[in-house]
Protein backbone atom coordinates (compact mmCIF):
# COMPACT_ATOMS: atom_id res chain seq x y z
CA UNK A 1 0.00 0.00 0.00
CA UNK A 2 1.97 3.01 -1.25
CA UNK A 3 0.78 6.33 0.09
CA UNK A 4 1.55 9.81 -1.16
CA UNK A 5 1.01 12.72 1.20
CA UNK A 6 0.80 16.27 -0.14
CA UNK A 7 2.14 18.74 2.37
CA UNK A 8 2.56 22.48 2.71
CA UNK A 9 4.91 24.69 4.69
CA UNK A 10 3.13 27.52 6.49
CA UNK A 11 4.00 30.19 9.07
CA UNK A 12 3.33 29.16 12.65
CA UNK A 13 0.09 30.97 13.50
CA UNK A 14 0.68 30.49 17.23
CA UNK A 15 3.22 33.31 16.81
CA UNK A 16 2.11 36.86 16.01
CA UNK A 17 1.20 37.41 12.37
CA UNK A 18 1.40 41.02 11.19
CA UNK A 19 0.05 42.53 8.02
CA UNK A 20 2.41 44.76 6.06
CA UNK A 21 1.42 48.44 6.29
CA UNK A 22 0.69 48.57 2.56
CA UNK A 23 -1.61 45.55 2.84
CA UNK A 24 0.31 43.61 0.22
CA UNK A 25 0.91 40.61 2.43
CA UNK A 26 2.16 39.60 5.84
CA UNK A 27 5.48 40.52 7.41
CA UNK A 28 7.84 37.63 6.73
CA UNK A 29 10.51 38.86 9.11
CA UNK A 30 10.69 36.62 12.16
CA UNK A 31 8.13 34.09 10.94
CA UNK A 32 8.58 30.56 12.16
CA UNK A 33 7.94 28.21 9.19
CA UNK A 34 6.48 24.83 10.03
CA UNK A 35 4.86 21.81 8.47
CA UNK A 36 1.09 22.58 8.31
CA UNK A 37 -0.58 20.89 11.34
CA UNK A 38 -3.22 19.22 9.21
CA UNK A 39 -0.50 17.73 7.03
CA UNK A 40 1.23 16.36 10.15
CA UNK A 41 -1.97 14.41 10.76
CA UNK A 42 -1.95 13.26 7.13
CA UNK A 43 1.66 12.07 7.40
CA UNK A 44 0.84 10.30 10.66
CA UNK A 45 -2.10 8.53 9.05
CA UNK A 46 0.09 7.47 6.15
CA UNK A 47 2.67 6.07 8.58
CA UNK A 48 -0.07 4.10 10.34
CA UNK A 49 -1.26 2.70 7.00
CA UNK A 50 2.31 1.62 6.31
CA UNK A 51 2.61 0.01 9.75
CA UNK A 52 -0.54 -1.98 9.05
CA UNK A 53 -0.22 -2.75 5.35
CA UNK A 54 3.42 -2.23 4.41
CA UNK A 55 4.52 -0.13 1.45
CA UNK A 56 6.14 3.28 1.24
CA UNK A 57 5.18 6.79 2.26
CA UNK A 58 6.21 9.57 -0.10
CA UNK A 59 5.67 13.22 0.78
CA UNK A 60 5.30 15.86 -1.92
CA UNK A 61 5.46 19.61 -1.52
CA UNK A 62 4.98 22.48 -3.94
CA UNK A 63 6.67 25.48 -2.40
CA UNK A 64 9.69 27.74 -2.31
CA UNK A 65 13.18 26.53 -1.39
CA UNK A 66 12.62 26.91 2.37
CA UNK A 67 9.73 24.43 2.17
CA UNK A 68 12.22 21.57 1.97
CA UNK A 69 12.41 21.82 5.74
CA UNK A 70 8.75 20.81 5.97
CA UNK A 71 9.58 17.78 3.85
CA UNK A 72 12.52 17.05 6.13
CA UNK A 73 10.18 17.16 9.14
CA UNK A 74 7.91 14.63 7.45
CA UNK A 75 10.92 12.44 6.68
CA UNK A 76 12.00 12.75 10.31
CA UNK A 77 8.54 11.54 11.36
CA UNK A 78 9.26 8.47 9.26
CA UNK A 79 8.26 9.10 5.65
CA UNK A 80 10.44 7.20 3.19
CA UNK A 81 10.80 9.57 0.26
CA UNK A 82 10.26 13.19 -0.57
CA UNK A 83 9.62 15.24 -3.69
CA UNK A 84 9.91 19.02 -3.79
CA UNK A 85 8.65 21.17 -6.63
CA UNK A 86 10.42 24.47 -6.16
CA UNK A 87 10.05 26.89 -9.01
CA UNK A 88 9.90 30.67 -8.54
CA UNK A 89 7.53 30.80 -11.53
CA UNK A 90 4.88 29.32 -9.24
CA UNK A 91 4.82 32.32 -6.93
CA UNK A 92 1.27 33.70 -7.12
CA UNK A 93 -0.23 30.51 -8.54
CA UNK A 94 -3.73 29.77 -7.28
CA UNK A 95 -4.88 26.51 -5.70
CA UNK A 96 -5.93 25.03 -9.02
CA UNK A 97 -2.45 25.70 -10.39
CA UNK A 98 -0.83 24.02 -7.38
CA UNK A 99 -3.21 21.06 -7.69
CA UNK A 100 -2.29 20.64 -11.35
CA UNK A 101 1.40 20.58 -10.50
CA UNK A 102 0.75 17.99 -7.79
CA UNK A 103 -1.27 15.91 -10.22
CA UNK A 104 1.64 15.95 -12.67
CA UNK A 105 4.05 14.82 -9.93
CA UNK A 106 1.70 12.03 -8.90
CA UNK A 107 1.61 10.91 -12.50
CA UNK A 108 5.24 9.91 -11.99
CA UNK A 109 4.73 8.07 -8.70
CA UNK A 110 3.29 4.71 -7.76
CA UNK A 111 0.46 5.08 -5.24
CA UNK A 112 -2.68 3.47 -3.91
CA UNK A 113 -3.76 6.32 -1.71
CA UNK A 114 -3.28 10.10 -1.59
CA UNK A 115 -3.66 11.96 1.69
CA UNK A 116 -3.70 15.70 2.34
CA UNK A 117 -4.50 17.84 5.34
CA UNK A 118 -8.03 19.22 5.19
CA UNK A 119 -6.71 22.75 4.95
CA UNK A 120 -3.53 24.74 5.39
CA UNK A 121 -3.41 27.18 8.26
CA UNK A 122 -2.09 30.04 6.15
CA UNK A 123 -4.97 30.52 3.75
CA UNK A 124 -7.43 28.10 5.42
CA UNK A 125 -8.77 27.39 1.91
CA UNK A 126 -9.33 23.58 1.69
CA UNK A 127 -9.33 23.64 -2.11
CA UNK A 128 -6.24 21.73 -3.22
CA UNK A 129 -7.33 18.27 -2.01
CA UNK A 130 -10.59 18.22 -3.98
CA UNK A 131 -9.04 19.86 -7.03
CA UNK A 132 -6.23 17.29 -7.01
CA UNK A 133 -8.76 14.45 -6.89
CA UNK A 134 -10.50 15.97 -9.91
CA UNK A 135 -7.30 16.25 -11.92
CA UNK A 136 -6.36 12.68 -11.05
CA UNK A 137 -9.89 11.51 -11.87
CA UNK A 138 -10.10 9.76 -8.51
CA UNK A 139 -12.87 9.41 -5.93
CA UNK A 140 -12.45 11.61 -2.88
CA UNK A 141 -13.61 12.16 0.67
CA UNK A 142 -12.83 15.36 2.54
CA UNK A 143 -12.30 16.02 6.23
CA UNK A 144 -12.18 12.37 7.20
CA UNK A 145 -11.82 11.49 10.87
CA UNK A 146 -11.30 7.75 10.46
CA UNK A 147 -9.69 5.52 7.84
CA UNK A 148 -9.74 1.74 7.51
CA UNK A 149 -8.49 -0.15 4.52
CA UNK A 150 -9.25 -3.70 3.52
CA UNK A 151 -8.76 -5.40 0.17
CA UNK A 152 -8.36 -2.21 -1.81
CA UNK A 153 -11.47 -0.65 -0.29
CA UNK A 154 -11.30 2.26 2.13
CA UNK A 155 -13.98 2.84 4.75
CA UNK A 156 -13.88 6.41 5.98
CA UNK A 157 -15.86 8.50 8.40
CA UNK A 158 -16.45 12.18 8.02
CA UNK A 159 -18.26 14.61 10.27
CA UNK A 160 -21.21 16.33 8.73
CA UNK A 161 -23.82 18.64 10.22
CA UNK A 162 -25.56 16.72 12.97
CA UNK A 163 -23.78 13.43 12.46
CA UNK A 164 -21.15 11.21 10.94
CA UNK A 165 -21.14 9.81 7.39
CA UNK A 166 -19.58 6.46 6.72
CA UNK A 167 -18.38 6.04 3.15
CA UNK A 168 -16.82 3.20 1.24
CA UNK A 169 -14.36 4.38 -1.37
CA UNK A 170 -12.45 2.13 -3.77
CA UNK A 171 -8.73 2.79 -3.95
CA UNK A 172 -6.90 4.61 -5.39
CA UNK A 173 -8.56 7.67 -3.90
CA UNK A 174 -7.78 11.09 -2.43
CA UNK A 175 -8.70 11.85 1.18
CA UNK A 176 -8.21 15.05 3.12
CA UNK A 177 -7.89 14.52 6.86
CA UNK A 178 -9.38 16.31 9.84
CA UNK A 179 -7.25 16.80 12.96
CA UNK A 180 -9.40 14.42 14.96
CA UNK A 181 -8.16 11.46 12.90
CA UNK A 182 -5.06 10.79 15.00
CA UNK A 183 -2.31 12.13 17.31
CA UNK A 184 0.76 12.75 15.18
CA UNK A 185 4.06 11.45 16.45
CA UNK A 186 6.91 13.88 17.13
CA UNK A 187 9.92 13.60 14.88
CA UNK A 188 12.53 11.97 17.10
CA UNK A 189 16.20 12.94 17.12
CA UNK A 190 17.23 9.61 15.59
CA UNK A 191 14.50 10.25 13.01
CA UNK A 192 15.99 13.64 12.25
CA UNK A 193 19.41 12.04 11.77
CA UNK A 194 17.95 9.40 9.45
CA UNK A 195 16.04 12.06 7.52
CA UNK A 196 19.30 13.88 6.88
CA UNK A 197 20.43 10.87 4.88
CA UNK A 198 17.23 10.59 2.81
CA UNK A 199 17.21 12.31 -0.56
CA UNK A 200 14.66 14.96 -1.49
CA UNK A 201 14.06 14.84 -5.23
CA UNK A 202 13.62 18.36 -6.61
CA UNK A 203 11.71 19.32 -9.73
CA UNK A 204 11.15 22.55 -11.59
CA UNK A 205 8.20 23.16 -13.92
CA UNK A 206 10.14 22.27 -17.09
CA UNK A 207 11.12 18.95 -15.43
CA UNK A 208 7.40 18.21 -15.16
CA UNK A 209 6.62 19.36 -18.67
CA UNK A 210 4.57 22.27 -17.41
CA UNK A 211 4.84 25.94 -18.21
CA UNK A 212 4.34 28.97 -16.00
CA UNK A 213 1.52 30.08 -18.31
CA UNK A 214 -0.37 26.89 -17.59
CA UNK A 215 -0.09 26.80 -13.81
CA UNK A 216 1.57 30.01 -12.62
CA UNK A 217 0.05 33.37 -11.65
CA UNK A 218 -1.06 34.09 -15.21
CA UNK A 219 -3.33 31.07 -15.07
CA UNK A 220 -4.78 32.00 -11.70
CA UNK A 221 -8.53 32.44 -11.59
CA UNK A 222 -8.40 34.28 -8.27
CA UNK A 223 -5.84 36.73 -6.93
CA UNK A 224 -5.31 38.22 -3.50
CA UNK A 225 -5.87 41.98 -3.76
CA UNK A 226 -5.08 43.04 -0.21
CA UNK A 227 -4.65 41.91 3.38
CA UNK A 228 -5.91 43.59 6.52
CA UNK A 229 -5.78 42.94 10.22
CA UNK A 230 -9.06 41.60 11.66
CA UNK A 231 -11.60 44.19 12.77
CA UNK A 232 -10.91 45.51 16.27
CA UNK A 233 -13.26 44.59 19.04
CA UNK A 234 -15.79 47.43 19.10
CA UNK A 235 -15.85 49.59 22.17
CA UNK A 236 -18.36 48.16 24.57
CA UNK A 237 -21.27 49.76 26.30
CA UNK A 238 -22.54 49.32 29.80
CA UNK A 239 -26.22 49.71 30.51
CA UNK A 240 -28.35 49.69 33.64
CA UNK A 241 -31.73 48.50 32.39
CA UNK A 242 -35.00 49.49 34.01
CA UNK A 243 -36.09 45.90 34.45
CA UNK A 244 -34.68 42.39 34.18
CA UNK A 245 -36.88 41.88 31.11
CA UNK A 246 -35.25 44.87 29.47
CA UNK A 247 -31.80 43.53 30.37
CA UNK A 248 -32.66 40.13 28.95
CA UNK A 249 -34.01 41.69 25.78
CA UNK A 250 -30.87 43.77 25.26
CA UNK A 251 -28.63 40.74 25.63
CA UNK A 252 -30.75 38.51 23.41
CA UNK A 253 -30.82 41.21 20.74
CA UNK A 254 -27.05 41.51 20.94
CA UNK A 255 -26.65 37.77 20.60
CA UNK A 256 -28.95 37.68 17.62
CA UNK A 257 -28.09 40.85 15.69
CA UNK A 258 -24.47 41.57 16.55
CA UNK A 259 -22.88 38.30 17.57
CA UNK A 260 -25.18 36.30 15.29
CA UNK A 261 -25.05 33.21 17.45
CA UNK A 262 -28.77 32.78 17.79
Amino acid at each position, binding site marked *: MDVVVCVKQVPDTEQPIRVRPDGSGIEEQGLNWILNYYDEHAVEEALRVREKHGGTVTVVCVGPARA*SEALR*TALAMGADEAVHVADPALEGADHLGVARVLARVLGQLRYDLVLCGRLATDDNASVVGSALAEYLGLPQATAISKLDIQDGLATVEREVEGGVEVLQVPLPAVFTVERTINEPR*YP*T*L*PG*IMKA*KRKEIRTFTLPDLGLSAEEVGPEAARVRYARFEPPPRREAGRVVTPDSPEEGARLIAEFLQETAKVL
Partner: protein
Amino acid sequence: MEFALTEEHRLVQQTAREFATREILPVASQLDAEHRFPAEIVRGLAELGLMGVTVPEEYGGAGMDHVAYVLAMEEVARACASTAAIMSVNNSLVCDPILRYGTEEQKRRYLPVLASGRELGCYCLTEPQAGSDAASLQTTARLDGESWVLNGTKVFVTNAREAWVFIVYARTEELPGARGISAFLVERDYPGITVGKVERKMGLLASSTCEVLLEDCRVPRENLLGARGEGFKVALSTLDGGRIGIAAQAVGIARAALEEGVAYAKERRQFGRPIAEFQAIQWKIADMATRIEAARLLTLRAAWLRDQGKRCTVEASMAKLFASETAMFAAHQGVQIFGGYGYIKDYPVERYFRDAKITEIYEGTSEIQRMVIARNLLA
Protein backbone atom coordinates in the same frame (compact mmCIF):
# COMPACT_ATOMS: atom_id res chain seq x y z
CA MET B 1 31.37 32.40 10.32
CA GLU B 2 27.91 30.96 10.04
CA PHE B 3 25.33 32.11 12.58
CA ALA B 4 22.43 30.26 11.04
CA LEU B 5 21.44 26.88 12.40
CA THR B 6 21.60 23.86 10.14
CA GLU B 7 18.36 22.25 9.08
CA GLU B 8 18.84 19.36 11.55
CA HIS B 9 19.46 21.78 14.37
CA ARG B 10 16.33 23.73 13.45
CA LEU B 11 14.32 20.51 13.37
CA VAL B 12 15.62 19.49 16.79
CA GLN B 13 14.75 22.91 18.14
CA GLN B 14 11.29 22.76 16.54
CA THR B 15 10.57 19.27 17.90
CA ALA B 16 11.79 20.11 21.38
CA ARG B 17 9.76 23.31 21.36
CA GLU B 18 6.56 21.57 20.27
CA PHE B 19 7.00 18.81 22.83
CA ALA B 20 7.79 21.31 25.58
CA THR B 21 4.83 23.51 24.68
CA ARG B 22 2.25 20.75 24.31
CA GLU B 23 3.36 18.25 26.93
CA ILE B 24 5.41 20.07 29.57
CA LEU B 25 4.15 23.64 29.79
CA PRO B 26 0.54 22.77 30.68
CA VAL B 27 1.64 20.76 33.74
CA ALA B 28 4.79 22.59 34.82
CA SER B 29 3.23 24.65 37.56
CA GLN B 30 1.36 21.62 38.89
CA LEU B 31 4.57 19.57 38.97
CA ASP B 32 6.15 22.37 40.98
CA ALA B 33 3.19 22.67 43.36
CA GLU B 34 3.02 18.91 43.94
CA HIS B 35 6.79 18.34 44.00
CA ARG B 36 6.03 15.57 41.55
CA PHE B 37 8.66 13.80 39.44
CA PRO B 38 7.58 14.10 35.77
CA ALA B 39 7.75 10.40 34.92
CA GLU B 40 5.49 10.62 31.84
CA ILE B 41 7.42 13.56 30.47
CA VAL B 42 10.78 11.87 30.99
CA ARG B 43 9.44 8.88 29.05
CA GLY B 44 8.35 11.26 26.28
CA LEU B 45 11.75 12.97 26.24
CA ALA B 46 13.44 9.59 26.01
CA GLU B 47 11.25 8.57 23.08
CA LEU B 48 12.40 11.65 21.26
CA GLY B 49 16.02 10.76 21.98
CA LEU B 50 16.53 13.65 24.37
CA MET B 51 17.85 11.63 27.31
CA GLY B 52 21.00 10.65 25.41
CA VAL B 53 21.41 13.33 22.75
CA THR B 54 25.13 12.89 22.12
CA VAL B 55 25.20 9.15 22.75
CA PRO B 56 26.06 7.46 19.43
CA GLU B 57 23.33 5.52 17.66
CA GLU B 58 25.21 2.25 18.18
CA TYR B 59 24.62 2.67 21.93
CA GLY B 60 20.98 3.63 21.51
CA GLY B 61 21.42 7.40 21.59
CA ALA B 62 20.37 10.03 19.12
CA GLY B 63 23.89 10.45 17.79
CA MET B 64 23.61 14.22 17.64
CA ASP B 65 25.96 16.96 18.78
CA HIS B 66 26.18 19.39 21.70
CA VAL B 67 24.61 22.21 19.69
CA ALA B 68 21.50 20.07 19.26
CA TYR B 69 21.66 19.30 22.97
CA VAL B 70 21.72 22.94 24.10
CA LEU B 71 18.97 23.90 21.65
CA ALA B 72 16.76 21.16 23.09
CA MET B 73 17.73 22.00 26.69
CA GLU B 74 16.71 25.62 26.27
CA GLU B 75 13.27 24.60 24.97
CA VAL B 76 12.68 22.13 27.79
CA ALA B 77 13.91 24.57 30.45
CA ARG B 78 11.69 27.31 29.10
CA ALA B 79 8.74 25.08 29.96
CA CYS B 80 10.08 23.50 33.17
CA ALA B 81 13.48 23.99 34.79
CA SER B 82 13.09 20.82 36.89
CA THR B 83 12.56 18.65 33.83
CA ALA B 84 15.56 20.31 32.22
CA ALA B 85 17.68 19.51 35.29
CA ILE B 86 16.67 15.86 35.12
CA MET B 87 17.52 15.81 31.43
CA SER B 88 20.85 17.58 31.86
CA VAL B 89 22.09 15.30 34.64
CA ASN B 90 21.32 12.22 32.58
CA ASN B 91 22.97 13.60 29.46
CA SER B 92 25.97 15.59 30.69
CA LEU B 93 26.82 14.16 34.07
CA VAL B 94 26.22 10.47 33.42
CA CYS B 95 26.11 9.50 29.73
CA ASP B 96 28.94 11.82 28.82
CA PRO B 97 31.62 10.51 31.25
CA ILE B 98 30.67 6.91 30.42
CA LEU B 99 31.10 7.74 26.76
CA ARG B 100 34.46 9.40 27.27
CA TYR B 101 36.03 7.19 29.91
CA GLY B 102 34.05 3.97 29.90
CA THR B 103 35.25 0.60 28.69
CA GLU B 104 33.36 -1.03 25.86
CA GLU B 105 31.55 -3.28 28.35
CA GLN B 106 30.56 -0.33 30.51
CA LYS B 107 29.26 1.58 27.51
CA ARG B 108 27.21 -1.40 26.36
CA ARG B 109 25.80 -2.02 29.79
CA TYR B 110 24.80 1.51 30.71
CA LEU B 111 24.39 3.76 27.68
CA PRO B 112 21.47 2.07 25.91
CA VAL B 113 19.49 1.89 29.15
CA LEU B 114 20.20 5.52 30.04
CA ALA B 115 19.61 6.89 26.54
CA SER B 116 16.30 5.07 26.26
CA GLY B 117 15.14 6.65 29.49
CA ARG B 118 14.30 3.24 30.90
CA GLU B 119 16.55 4.18 33.78
CA LEU B 120 18.17 7.38 34.97
CA GLY B 121 21.62 8.17 36.24
CA CYS B 122 23.03 10.61 38.76
CA TYR B 123 26.34 12.20 39.72
CA CYS B 124 27.71 11.94 43.27
CA LEU B 125 30.59 14.32 43.89
CA THR B 126 29.63 16.87 46.55
CA GLU B 127 29.86 15.99 50.23
CA PRO B 128 28.80 17.80 53.38
CA GLN B 129 32.38 19.04 53.84
CA ALA B 130 33.37 19.22 50.19
CA GLY B 131 31.42 21.62 47.98
CA SER B 132 33.39 24.11 45.95
CA ASP B 133 36.47 22.38 47.31
CA ALA B 134 35.40 19.13 45.72
CA ALA B 135 38.90 17.73 45.60
CA SER B 136 38.93 17.52 49.40
CA LEU B 137 36.24 14.83 49.30
CA GLN B 138 36.48 12.11 51.91
CA THR B 139 34.48 9.19 50.56
CA THR B 140 36.88 6.27 50.38
CA ALA B 141 37.17 3.24 48.13
CA ARG B 142 39.36 0.33 49.15
CA LEU B 143 40.04 -2.73 47.06
CA ASP B 144 38.94 -5.97 48.69
CA GLY B 145 39.38 -8.96 46.40
CA GLU B 146 37.22 -8.54 43.34
CA SER B 147 35.30 -5.59 44.77
CA TRP B 148 35.84 -2.02 45.70
CA VAL B 149 34.31 -1.10 49.04
CA LEU B 150 33.02 2.44 49.25
CA ASN B 151 32.29 4.43 52.38
CA GLY B 152 31.06 7.96 52.67
CA THR B 153 28.19 10.40 52.29
CA LYS B 154 27.26 12.39 49.21
CA VAL B 155 24.83 15.28 49.16
CA PHE B 156 22.86 17.37 46.69
CA VAL B 157 22.54 14.54 44.19
CA THR B 158 19.89 15.33 41.55
CA ASN B 159 17.84 12.32 40.33
CA ALA B 160 19.16 10.11 43.17
CA ARG B 161 15.71 8.98 44.23
CA GLU B 162 14.90 7.77 40.69
CA ALA B 163 18.35 6.72 39.53
CA TRP B 164 19.60 3.27 38.65
CA VAL B 165 23.26 4.11 38.14
CA PHE B 166 25.29 6.46 40.35
CA ILE B 167 28.64 7.86 39.31
CA VAL B 168 30.46 8.12 42.63
CA TYR B 169 33.79 9.88 43.18
CA ALA B 170 35.87 8.40 45.98
CA ARG B 171 39.42 8.53 47.30
CA THR B 172 41.39 5.43 46.33
CA GLU B 173 44.95 6.62 46.85
CA GLU B 174 46.78 7.73 49.89
CA LEU B 175 47.14 11.08 48.24
CA PRO B 176 45.46 14.31 49.17
CA GLY B 177 43.46 16.41 46.82
CA ALA B 178 42.62 15.67 43.22
CA ARG B 179 45.30 13.09 42.58
CA GLY B 180 43.84 10.50 44.93
CA ILE B 181 40.35 10.32 43.47
CA SER B 182 38.78 7.69 41.25
CA ALA B 183 35.35 7.40 39.68
CA PHE B 184 32.97 4.44 40.05
CA LEU B 185 29.78 3.20 38.44
CA VAL B 186 27.52 2.07 41.29
CA GLU B 187 24.10 0.50 40.69
CA ARG B 188 21.15 1.00 42.97
CA ASP B 189 20.98 -2.72 43.84
CA TYR B 190 24.57 -3.06 45.01
CA PRO B 191 24.74 -3.76 48.74
CA GLY B 192 25.51 -0.75 50.91
CA ILE B 193 24.14 2.13 48.85
CA THR B 194 21.10 3.96 50.17
CA VAL B 195 19.35 7.10 49.05
CA GLY B 196 18.88 9.14 52.18
CA LYS B 197 17.14 12.39 52.85
CA VAL B 198 15.32 14.11 50.00
CA GLU B 199 16.06 17.82 50.38
CA ARG B 200 13.28 20.40 50.57
CA LYS B 201 14.41 23.11 48.16
CA MET B 202 13.64 26.65 47.11
CA GLY B 203 13.08 25.64 43.51
CA LEU B 204 13.48 22.82 40.98
CA LEU B 205 10.76 21.17 43.01
CA ALA B 206 9.81 18.49 40.52
CA SER B 207 13.28 16.97 40.58
CA SER B 208 14.69 15.10 43.54
CA THR B 209 17.89 16.25 45.25
CA CYS B 210 19.12 13.74 47.81
CA GLU B 211 21.73 12.45 50.17
CA VAL B 212 23.39 9.23 49.09
CA LEU B 213 24.90 7.02 51.81
CA LEU B 214 27.60 4.47 51.12
CA GLU B 215 28.23 2.01 53.94
CA ASP B 216 30.62 -0.73 52.93
CA CYS B 217 29.09 -0.53 49.52
CA ARG B 218 30.53 -3.32 47.39
CA VAL B 219 31.16 -2.40 43.75
CA PRO B 220 32.52 -4.90 41.17
CA ARG B 221 36.14 -4.24 40.30
CA GLU B 222 35.34 -3.66 36.64
CA ASN B 223 33.09 -0.75 37.58
CA LEU B 224 36.01 1.62 38.00
CA LEU B 225 35.32 4.39 35.48
CA GLY B 226 38.51 5.56 33.86
CA ALA B 227 41.90 4.83 35.40
CA ARG B 228 42.72 4.73 39.10
CA GLY B 229 43.56 8.21 40.33
CA GLU B 230 42.04 9.69 37.18
CA GLY B 231 38.69 10.39 38.86
CA PHE B 232 39.08 14.11 39.23
CA LYS B 233 40.00 14.44 35.57
CA VAL B 234 36.73 12.60 34.79
CA ALA B 235 34.85 14.95 37.11
CA LEU B 236 36.26 18.10 35.57
CA SER B 237 35.81 17.08 31.97
CA THR B 238 32.27 16.07 32.86
CA LEU B 239 31.66 19.47 34.38
CA ASP B 240 32.71 21.21 31.17
CA GLY B 241 29.81 19.57 29.40
CA GLY B 242 27.55 19.92 32.41
CA ARG B 243 28.15 23.64 32.60
CA ILE B 244 27.15 24.02 28.96
CA GLY B 245 23.91 22.18 29.74
CA ILE B 246 23.23 24.36 32.78
CA ALA B 247 23.95 27.46 30.72
CA ALA B 248 21.27 26.32 28.27
CA GLN B 249 18.90 25.63 31.15
CA ALA B 250 19.49 29.14 32.46
CA VAL B 251 18.85 30.64 29.01
CA GLY B 252 15.56 28.75 28.92
CA ILE B 253 14.47 30.04 32.33
CA ALA B 254 15.43 33.58 31.35
CA ARG B 255 13.53 33.30 28.10
CA ALA B 256 10.44 32.09 29.95
CA ALA B 257 10.57 35.19 32.15
CA LEU B 258 11.00 37.42 29.10
CA GLU B 259 8.14 35.84 27.13
CA GLU B 260 5.75 35.98 30.06
CA GLY B 261 6.81 39.55 30.83
CA VAL B 262 6.23 40.67 27.24
CA ALA B 263 2.78 39.05 27.08
CA TYR B 264 1.73 40.54 30.42
CA ALA B 265 3.04 44.00 29.61
CA LYS B 266 0.91 44.12 26.46
CA GLU B 267 -2.28 43.16 28.31
CA ARG B 268 -1.97 44.85 31.69
CA ARG B 269 -3.39 48.34 31.71
CA GLN B 270 -2.60 51.02 34.25
CA PHE B 271 -2.98 54.78 34.00
CA GLY B 272 -5.13 54.29 30.94
CA ARG B 273 -2.72 52.30 28.81
CA PRO B 274 -0.85 49.02 28.50
CA ILE B 275 2.22 49.08 30.74
CA ALA B 276 4.23 48.06 27.66
CA GLU B 277 4.03 51.74 26.72
CA PHE B 278 6.00 52.83 29.76
CA GLN B 279 9.74 53.27 29.38
CA ALA B 280 10.49 51.60 32.71
CA ILE B 281 8.99 48.38 31.44
CA GLN B 282 10.50 48.75 27.96
CA TRP B 283 13.98 49.04 29.39
CA LYS B 284 13.52 45.93 31.51
CA ILE B 285 12.43 44.03 28.41
CA ALA B 286 15.34 45.37 26.38
CA ASP B 287 17.88 44.44 29.04
CA MET B 288 16.45 40.97 29.50
CA ALA B 289 16.38 40.32 25.76
CA THR B 290 19.90 41.52 25.13
CA ARG B 291 21.41 39.49 27.93
CA ILE B 292 19.52 36.41 26.83
CA GLU B 293 20.88 36.74 23.29
CA ALA B 294 24.41 37.12 24.65
CA ALA B 295 23.98 34.16 27.01
CA ARG B 296 22.64 32.00 24.22
CA LEU B 297 25.52 32.85 21.91
CA LEU B 298 28.09 32.07 24.62
CA THR B 299 26.35 28.76 25.21
CA LEU B 300 26.21 27.85 21.53
CA ARG B 301 29.85 28.69 21.09
CA ALA B 302 30.90 26.52 24.02
CA ALA B 303 28.76 23.68 22.61
CA TRP B 304 30.30 24.12 19.20
CA LEU B 305 33.83 24.00 20.63
CA ARG B 306 33.01 20.76 22.48
CA ASP B 307 31.71 19.32 19.21
CA GLN B 308 34.95 20.24 17.50
CA GLY B 309 36.82 18.28 20.17
CA LYS B 310 38.47 21.50 21.26
CA ARG B 311 39.13 22.46 24.84
CA CYS B 312 36.20 24.49 26.08
CA THR B 313 36.70 24.82 29.85
CA VAL B 314 36.89 28.60 29.89
CA GLU B 315 34.10 29.09 27.33
CA ALA B 316 31.84 26.70 29.26
CA SER B 317 32.54 28.61 32.47
CA MET B 318 31.83 31.93 30.79
CA ALA B 319 28.58 30.61 29.37
CA LYS B 320 27.45 29.13 32.68
CA LEU B 321 28.44 32.21 34.65
CA PHE B 322 26.78 34.69 32.33
CA ALA B 323 23.67 32.64 31.58
CA SER B 324 22.95 31.86 35.24
CA GLU B 325 23.31 35.52 36.23
CA THR B 326 21.09 36.38 33.28
CA ALA B 327 18.47 33.91 34.50
CA MET B 328 18.42 35.57 37.93
CA PHE B 329 18.29 39.01 36.35
CA ALA B 330 15.48 38.08 33.98
CA ALA B 331 13.48 36.31 36.66
CA HIS B 332 13.87 39.31 38.96
CA GLN B 333 12.77 41.73 36.23
CA GLY B 334 9.99 39.37 35.24
CA VAL B 335 8.51 39.36 38.73
CA GLN B 336 8.83 43.13 38.85
CA ILE B 337 6.94 43.53 35.56
CA PHE B 338 4.08 41.50 37.01
CA GLY B 339 4.08 43.63 40.14
CA GLY B 340 1.90 42.16 42.87
CA TYR B 341 0.79 39.33 40.59
CA GLY B 342 4.44 38.36 40.20
CA TYR B 343 4.42 37.28 43.83
CA ILE B 344 1.39 35.05 43.41
CA LYS B 345 1.62 31.40 42.50
CA ASP B 346 -1.18 31.65 39.94
CA TYR B 347 1.43 33.19 37.67
CA PRO B 348 4.58 31.32 36.59
CA VAL B 349 7.17 34.08 37.19
CA GLU B 350 7.66 33.41 40.89
CA ARG B 351 8.62 29.86 39.98
CA TYR B 352 11.23 31.12 37.49
CA PHE B 353 12.68 33.27 40.28
CA ARG B 354 12.97 30.25 42.61
CA ASP B 355 14.25 27.98 39.85
CA ALA B 356 16.82 30.44 38.50
CA LYS B 357 18.77 30.75 41.73
CA ILE B 358 20.28 27.25 41.68
CA THR B 359 21.88 27.89 38.28
CA GLU B 360 24.29 30.29 39.99
CA ILE B 361 25.28 27.56 42.44
CA TYR B 362 25.33 24.02 41.14
CA GLU B 363 27.95 22.54 38.86
CA GLY B 364 30.32 25.17 40.14
CA THR B 365 29.23 28.38 41.83
CA SER B 366 29.60 31.70 40.02
CA GLU B 367 32.59 32.34 42.28
CA ILE B 368 34.29 29.17 41.06
CA GLN B 369 33.49 30.05 37.46
CA ARG B 370 35.15 33.43 37.92
CA MET B 371 38.23 31.70 39.33
CA VAL B 372 38.40 29.38 36.34
CA ILE B 373 38.12 32.24 33.89
CA ALA B 374 40.61 34.50 35.69
CA ARG B 375 43.18 31.75 36.13
CA ASN B 376 43.09 31.09 32.44
CA LEU B 377 43.94 34.70 31.68
CA LEU B 378 46.41 35.26 34.48
CA ALA B 379 48.34 32.01 34.32
